[in-house]
């Protein structure tokens, strides 16, 4: 009756964790594909407004980013609570926008210079005064293509 012989050790066998790396690698590849490297450390709050008639931005090599919003909590003491502009990891004044955009356009490849889009990543709580000032500066340097970067969703969610 060897078929029904009891197994010798009564201890439970160890649970195999061999598939754990596979699962983690799956997560890893997911994150590698859907995210991009951080370019700028955000110094301002950046809760983008919501819109649903959006168009995708062009390729990254022809986009200039301008951030604006109230400074993050840790910078409020040094820079105050009013909405500020952020260019390239630094707080900036409105007069810095035009030279910054010109310099960025100059740094692009020549054939892309006419196609440059300026993406405005502005916090929803910012006043339009600041945004209008930025737009005026952009008009001065003839960088006319802009993109109000938004999250995708129902625009009525902006109102509450």
């Amino acid at each position, binding site marked *: 009756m060897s078929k029904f012989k009891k197994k010798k050790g009564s201890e439970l066998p160890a649970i195999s*964790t*061999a598939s*754990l*790396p596979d699962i*983690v*690698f799956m*997560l*890893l590849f997911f*994150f*590698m594909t*859907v*995210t*991009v*490297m*951080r370019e700028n450390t955000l110094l301002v709050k950046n809760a*983008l*407004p*919501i*819109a*649903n*008639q*959006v*168009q*995708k*931005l*062009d*390729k*990254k090599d022809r986009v200039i980013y301008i951030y604006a919003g109230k400074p993050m909590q840790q910078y409020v003491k040094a820079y105050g609570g009013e909405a500020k502009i952020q260019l390239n990891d630094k707080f900036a004044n409105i007069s810095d926008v035009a030279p910054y955009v010109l310099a960025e356009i100059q740094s692009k490849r020549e054939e892309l210079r006419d196609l440059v*889009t300026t*993406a405005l*990543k*502005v*916090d*929803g*709580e*910012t*006043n*339009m*005064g600041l*945004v*209008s000032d930025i*737009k005026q500066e*952009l*008009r*001065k340097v*003839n960088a*006319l*293509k*802009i*993109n*109000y*970067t*938004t*999250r*995708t969703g129902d*625009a*009525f969610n*902006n*109102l509450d």
Partner: protein
Amino acid sequence: MARRSAPEVNAGSMADIAFLLLIFFLVTTTIETDAGLNRKLPPLEPPTENPPVLREKNIFEVVVNKNDQLLVEGQLAQLKDLRQLAVDFLDNGGGVGKEACNYCKGRRDATSSDNPEKAVISLQNDRETSYKTYIAVQNELVAAYNVLRNRESQRLYGQDFTEMYAAYNDPKTPSSLKDELKPKVEAIQALYPQKLSEAEPKSN
């Protein structure tokens, strides 16, 4: 030769290595938002130039005040009604003779716009208007154009304009398809040209 089974490699630390990599990517990367409302700013013009004369009835006036309230054509309005109001205005087609619009399906009200080519939406906001309200208003106005363009596109080509336009602008689209889409996109854009002008914000 005696057959020997290869000793099993201990893979217990593989998960740890993978976790390390995963956490590295979690902290150094962001999910980038790369979509938004594309707009074109008007070029700075010399102040001596005379602005083109527009008839009052061809202007759809939208004013947003500092309390984020909307004034559409001189009347208080809610944001949820703005899209329909803009569609009605653009699609009115009240012109006669040379200015008639044969594809418009509006009310043909003589006091509203002549045809979509003449119709201009004028948006004015206050310096203290909040950005998110401004975006919501812009979104609704762009939506109004998209509603009409999609309608005409469905009628003429059996597909949505927004889809065609996205495919046309996508760098991954093969150029043969782009050449095919280009006349269609331009035809629809000519039927309902986006004339959305923004006045300088008031400060008071």
